[in-house]
């Protein structure tokens, strides 16, 4: 129970300490100390009335003690001392309320001056409260690599003066896009993996963002998109094998998540949202309805193509066009897309070719998709399809 509380509180406590200390490493050490003290005392003496306030206060005091001890940080002590003197003693009790500074911390961690993999790792560490060990395992990199990556990012934030602030209006749209991209990347990394539950982690982060930025349509839309995707997670596998959308047992879909996702999407539209996440969430929603409105889906993909210019979007439009206008029309759209390293491009082509009865070409495309796929359910699914088309081409020759 305490562990659960700690995970919930970590981001709040850490953000407040980063705001106070101006350094993520110092803040992390202080927060860890405070949580350790709490873990020892609370079960014995009971939890304080305001656990967040207590944790922040205790961590602040620890940090100040520590800075005083370390003579090399004399300048910082003087600064902090000044700030502390400015703050009257009575507000320093454990009932003190501290402003929520998680939003500042998110924008710091997702600052585009940091490498994308560092943004992702740092966001999970500071706001998600995952350990470096857990993050390393989730991204299949050695602990040492992840640890160095995080340390380097924290030092760059400190030494290059990356701001701990919500960006001003003229920078906000672009910076918010970066934050949303990090969260969505975390979600997709967890999709289908059996490591740390990164999808759940992304949803948690996204919930905080919606809470902190209640007027941002794209923040609502991203959460909607992820919930609608996550709702089908129990139905995506049967006995460890991949099940395609049309074959899924709909009774396994999480209706609560679908309802919440749709409400969030409506809210995003009401906020006059028309960005890429609004469109993607609308498409995800249409895919769950029966019969599927392929015409509307094609239109939305066209809109998304205009916004993103991404060949992956064109590929997805081709799938919808194949349903609406015929397999041949879909296949034609796939030609010349520069997605040779993308496994879903080859598996999509393979599927259309297979359904057109062009088994030899389908076999080659499944082969290329398999070269790009890691062992697991997706690989077994593609191997099954490859075996089918090989039997087909053996019969026809």
């Amino acid at each position, binding site marked *: 129970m305490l562990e659960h509380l700690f995970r919930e509180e970590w981001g709040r406590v850490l953000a407040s300490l980063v705001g106070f200390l101006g350094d993520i490493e110092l803040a992390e050490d202080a927060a860890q100390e405070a949580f350790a003290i709490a873990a020892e005392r609370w079960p014995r003496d009971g939890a304080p009335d305001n656990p967040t306030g207590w944790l922040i206060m205790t961590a602040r005091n620890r940090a100040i003690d520590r800075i005083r001890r370390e003579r090399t940080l004399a300048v910082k002590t003087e600064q902090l001392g000044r700030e502390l003197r400015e703050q009257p003693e009575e507000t320093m009790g454990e009932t003190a309320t501290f402003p929520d500074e998680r939003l500042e911390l998110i924008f710091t961690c997702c600052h585009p001056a940091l490498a994308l993999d560092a943004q992702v790792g740092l966001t999970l560490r500071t706001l998600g409260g995952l350990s470096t060990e857990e993050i390393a395992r989730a991204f299949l990199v050695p602990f040492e690599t992840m640890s160095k990556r995080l340390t380097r990012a924290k030092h760059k934030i400190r030494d*290059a*003066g*990356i*701001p701990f*602030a919500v*960006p001003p209006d003229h920078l906000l749209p672009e910076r918010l896009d970066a934050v949303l991209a990090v969260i969505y990347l975390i979600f997709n990394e967890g999709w289908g993996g059996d490591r740390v539950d990164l999808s759940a982690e992304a949803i948690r982060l996204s919930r905080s963002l919606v809470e902190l930025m209640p007027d941002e349509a794209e923040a609502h839309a991203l959460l909607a998109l992820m919930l609608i995707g996550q709702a089908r997670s129990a139905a995506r596998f049967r006995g460890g094998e991949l099940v395609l959308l049309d074959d899924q047992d709909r009774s396994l879909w999480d209706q609560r998540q679908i309802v919440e996702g749709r409400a969030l999407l409506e809210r995003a539209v009401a906020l006059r949202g028309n960005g890429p996440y609004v469109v993607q969430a609308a498409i995800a929603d249409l895919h769950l309805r029966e019969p599927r409105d392929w015409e509307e889906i094609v239109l939305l993909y066209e809109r998304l193509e205009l916004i993103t210019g991404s060949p992956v979007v064109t590929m997805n439009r081709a799938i919808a066009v194949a349903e609406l206008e015929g397999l041949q029309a879909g296949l034609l759209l796939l030609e010349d897309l520069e997605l040779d390293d993308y496994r879903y491009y080859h598996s999509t082509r393979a599927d259309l070719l297979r359904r057109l009865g062009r088994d030899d070409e389908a076999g080659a495309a499944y082969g290329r998709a398999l070269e790009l796929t890691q062992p697991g359910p997706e690989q077994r699914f593609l191997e099954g399809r490859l075996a089918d088309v090989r039997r087909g081409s053996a019969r026809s020759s």
Partner: protein
Amino acid sequence: MRYALLIYDDIEIRDRTPLDERRRITEAVLGVLERPDVTGWLRLQDVETATTVRREKGRALLTDGPFVDSKDYLGGFVVVEAENLDGALAVADELQGLRPWGAIEVRPVREEPGVVA
């Protein structure tokens, strides 16, 4: 904080650009350099004038040319005073918007005294 904006130029594009166009760009860049948040700047002579000094076996070893030999070269630097990285990036972006080539590297200035690399 102070930031150094390292101005990188591209030899090939520079040589292709007509002289009056280059003069016009210089004028526009000088407009930015005269602002109060710019605390210092240096424009360097063309990279062909560079000499690199190394030391080998206790003696100076000189090579003709820049340390990093590529078609991109350091053309000068600008020092700006900004509240944080975003402030410095904004000035860099403004300068880069005036130039059709190259790129600008933004580096925070090390302010603590007594540490020599």
